[in-house]
């Protein structure tokens, strides 16, 4: 029985969170899985394996996958692998805006409480670019960009999904979220895995991984773009828009242009 949970229910399935959807096209199979956040047991397990405590909302069962059936090559996007790339040492650790003030007052009162519990990058910033099968086929650096013109054409969308991998409210100091979107058209697909983070009064980060597949040539292009800007700079820019600033601060689509690129890479792989 569930004695270690003292009666907490085993089955917490909520309707409307039904598992897998997929589509097959030109030898490619695209699968997405959407389930509720993890329960206490799996969270503890993940905590042990990762060595850091997972985000508050951890969709550990979810994933998005692109497979090339002929060779078995695939690329996966999931929360565990993304979190495994979060800094676990505390070297890249941010502090909330009022931390200095708080620590000064605190250290006067409690000299004995010095230890920071399990330091790690609690903003869950990740440079995750997906988990690709390690075979002879691997991504090579490239200069060929994703063909935007082809993606701007209003081709019919045969398959679309939006999958949340994790989200954390940073203890009400902002937001960190990692999510994936995919759209499959008759001749190509685009996947966007986006990490968005706002630490109030400190910093904004957007880290995008785009995977583009041209079915006819089985060509895969992967592009990674990291953007970052100080909170105050963004706030000032938004103040001039006369729009709903709090809403804009939650919308990475509206923020990308305000955050300069700090890192960019392009890779390419042909599967046949």
């Amino acid at each position: 029985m569930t004695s270690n949970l003292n009666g907490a229910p085993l089955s917490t399935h909520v309707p409307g969170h039904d598992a897998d959807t997929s589509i097959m096209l030109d030898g490619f199979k695209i699968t997405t899985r959407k389930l509720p956040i993890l329960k206490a047991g799996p969270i503890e397990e993940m905590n042990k394996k990762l060595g850091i405590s997972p985000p508050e909302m951890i969709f550990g069962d979810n994933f998005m996958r692109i497979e090339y059936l002929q060779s078995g090559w695939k690329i996966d996007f999931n929360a565990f692998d993304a979190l495994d790339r979060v800094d676990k040492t505390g070297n890249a650790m941010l502090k909330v805006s009022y931390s200095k003030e708080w620590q000064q007052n605190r250290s006067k009162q409690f000299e004995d409480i010095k230890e920071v519990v399990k330091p790690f990058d609690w903003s869950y910033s990740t440079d995750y670019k997906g988990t690709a099968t390690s075979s002879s086929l691997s991504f090579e650096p490239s200069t060929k960009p994703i063909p935007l013109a082809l993606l701007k054409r209003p081709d019919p969308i045969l398959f679309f999904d939006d999958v949340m991998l994790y989200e954390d409210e940073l203890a009400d100091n902002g937001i960190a979220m990692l999510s994936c979107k995919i759209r499959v058209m008759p001749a190509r697909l685009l996947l966007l895995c986006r990490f968005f983070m706002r630490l109030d009064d400190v910093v904004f980060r957007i880290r995008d991984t785009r995977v583009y597949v041209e079915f006819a040539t089985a060509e895969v292009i992967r592009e990674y773009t990291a953007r970052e800007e100080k909170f105050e700079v963004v706030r000032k820019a938004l103040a001039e828009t006369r729009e709903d600033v709090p809403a804009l601060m939650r919308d990475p689509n509206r923020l990308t242009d305000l955050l300069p690129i700090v890192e960019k890479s392009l890779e390419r792989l042909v599967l046949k």
Partner: protein
Amino acid sequence: MSSGGSDLDKAIQQLRACRPIPENQVRELCYKARELLIEEGNVVGVDAPVTICGDIHGQFHDLMELFRVGGDVPDTNYLFMGDFVDRGFYSLESFLLLLCLKVRYPDRITLIRGNHESRQITTVYGFYDECLRKYGSANVWRYCCEVFDYLALGALVTGTATNLEPSEAPFADPSSQASMPGLDQDIEIETLNSNGEIMFRFARNGEVSQPSQAASAPSSSPLVDTPSRTGPSGTGATSSSNGSRGNDGGAVLCVHGGLSPLIDTIDKIRLLDRKQEVPHEGAMCDLLWSDPDEIDGWGLSPRGAGFLFGADIVKCFNHKNDLSLIARAHQLVMEGFKEMFDSTIVTVWSAPNYCYRCGNVAAILELGEDGSNAGFVRRANGDAGRKQNSVLMERGERGREGPGRRYRVFEAAPQDSRGMPAKKPVADYFL
């Protein structure tokens, strides 16, 4: 609008239909609520039976589901542990309804403050924007914030029963009945689903094994020396009469977040000046923000602000203050509730499918009334001993038995789709 009058009942009716009440009525309601709340201490005394609820976060339809599952006000005595607003789409209706019920039935509902009942937090996380959208000005938000400053910081539940009166309900899974303790045993925990069916039953000292985390709970910290004290728990008062142990489940402290290194007795909470915006540091801030964690003693959150506290801290605090349990909210748990540290602290979470996408269930905690003393509520007191745990067993003391706990678990209400994120994502030509 006169309290207890038909105007108030009309407002309740309107809010139950999820329709906001006019601004002038909100002003009057908030004024009345403040008059009422100012009379309450920082730690409100509540007699069992009581139903304890965690975060609501503006999920109005789920609050209605909570009342359906737990019973209506005033039939059920409720204690809400804060975070009424932000995140959800109906913070305004949810908070005003709870406030109306408080003014209408002050002795049947207790509201304590969460970290979201704050000017600063509500301007970032939705409540401010919602007020602006629904009234065209920030007046209503301002009235509500003034009420926030008067909300109590905690509650102390006394007169609880050690053993649950078993629910006369069918088992959700009839085949599981055989493995559950029979009715001849003392019931410590029962978990019911939203149909009132029994999902789980746990006998005190019964054959169902103790929580596994009990074995791993740290027990290294020495106990502070506790003076013998026999007055009402939390008061520090003494009296010589103790009475029989009977079915007394001990006192339960309810706070939104948790403990503070500045607070070692409940009396110290009583001495705080609470009528202010939630400060960024200090005891009041800690009570609303801190979290229990699997650590020894106190720790600093890696975020650079905020405290974490371990099992030894909870056990010492409970021992010193003659508590059998701390109930708190503040953290999302998939199962709706989570007991930690040998059941000396529990997190209760009452917002199902949080933010309309987490897929979690919610729970409320019912504590029964100790009727064994013919209506005389014998307060918990120092001599009765402690919860069984290794720290105290080493001292050769008897464990205090905690209150019998009935958890009702429920799922998100089917809601109207206004403003809800679509279940099926809308395809878009993102780049």
